């Protein structure tokens, strides 16, 4: 297709087709305040429902994580650092310090919603954060 959307007259392709498998980025929390979680916690599935402010922001956390992942694979380290900082300060503000990992996952929607399992995933990188600074 020549283009997906033409901003601002852009409502051309809005929910027009749905792939049987999705590939996207996700963030998993590994530890916080020196305590390591038994299983890495999926940021969207575990953290967002507990955080009233994030719950009200609709799809913003998911979109930010996608930008984070794309910036990680991109060529602009400055923009990547800015998005990483934006994510840590705005979305991990409940924690003083900890560690999280960025993953690239592939999942089948009907299976994922029932079991939470992915078809496969790769850990791209692990990051330590400290919001006390």
């Amino acid at each position, binding site marked *: 297709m020549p283009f997906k959307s033409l901003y601002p007259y852009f409502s051309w392709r809005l929910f027009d087709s749905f792939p049987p498998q999705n590939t996207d980025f996700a963030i998993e929390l590994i530890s916080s305040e020196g305590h390591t979680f038994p299983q890495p916690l999926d940021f969207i599935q575990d953290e967002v429902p507990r955080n009233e402010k994030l719950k009200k922001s609709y799809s913003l956390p998911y979109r930010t994580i996608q930008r984070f992942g794309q910036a990680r694979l991109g060529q602009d380290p400055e923009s990547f650092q800015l998005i990483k900082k934006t994510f840590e300060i705005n979305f991990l503000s409940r924690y003083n310090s900890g560690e999280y990992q960025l993953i690239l996952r592939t999942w089948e929607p009907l299976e994922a*919603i029932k079991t939470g399992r992915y078809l496969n995933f790769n850990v791209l990188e692990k990051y330590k954060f400290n919001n006390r600074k």
Partner: protein
Amino acid sequence: MILSLSKKIRKFMQGETRVISNNPVANMRSRFDSAKVAIKVISCFYFWLFLDDITHIISLSGKPVALSPPPIGFWMTDMGFTYTSLFIYSIYFFCATACIIRPDSRWLRVGLFLSVLNSNILKSSLSTISYDKNGWIWLAFALIFLPNNKDKQKCSEKVYQYWYLTTCWFATALTISVYTMSGMWKILSGFFYDGFVNNYTFLSSKAMSYHLASHIFRNGYNLPAAEFVIENHFLGWAMLSCAVYLQFFSFWIPFRPLLFAPWLLFLAAFHTLNLVLMNLPFNHQGFIIILLLGGLPFLVYPKNFYQLIVTMPLAGKIYSGVIDKKEHKAHSYVVRYGFKRP
């Protein structure tokens, strides 16, 4: 030739039902008065939009902000978040306030359109393109063409009223056309494109289930109504097909005044289901639909169910041609409305 072509297009868009005014002069006067009130309400609402946008921007002050605007907002990255916000919102504040006092100034309307557009670009550049206020951008653009005081002096009262109402009609048509664009692409994807890459489209019974499951899983929502639709593929498919019909034929509605009220209800139901099933609020878009389809004075109520059904795009053609076989006489297709002649 152009005139005859435009007549043919209008006839095609109007369908078989004709809506005729009993007293055109009195009706135009009354419609013009109502349109003036509606434009005042719309101007006030732009100020409310300004407050809504600025609250969001202020909540981000002091935090790191990464901008990735769409191409049209290329200058924002160089200018930075703080200066861009100050620049846009001071003009926005001035134009939104002044438009309430002087809604007929064209320069203020141009300023308001540019402010709403740039405010939306700035907000979209923070995460993803925001669709909710898209209609308000196009409404602001269409209202630039309202006649101003100078135009009023240049032309007769009748021409001025006609110009005013035509611009209001154009605003409705332009704003509602975004639904048709969306519906059109769903149909094109279904028939020509995504079938070849194994994606589900509205032609597949599982499309809605996949769509809802992806949306819920991505965003971590807990929506019991959506889970019910995911389990019942056929229900989801029926809902998606109705949505495609509703969206695609939205552009026909400005030509068919009998459908303003029903379409207002259908679109309200569509947006409510979006909220219940996907947690997608379209408050601003919902309000614009109420104002344009219900608030502007083009609405004519159908007198019976038959008039409603034959006026529906495509469905009306099928009903009158195949089921009813034109048993109803021709006068059933003519709807008279408004003031009676004294």
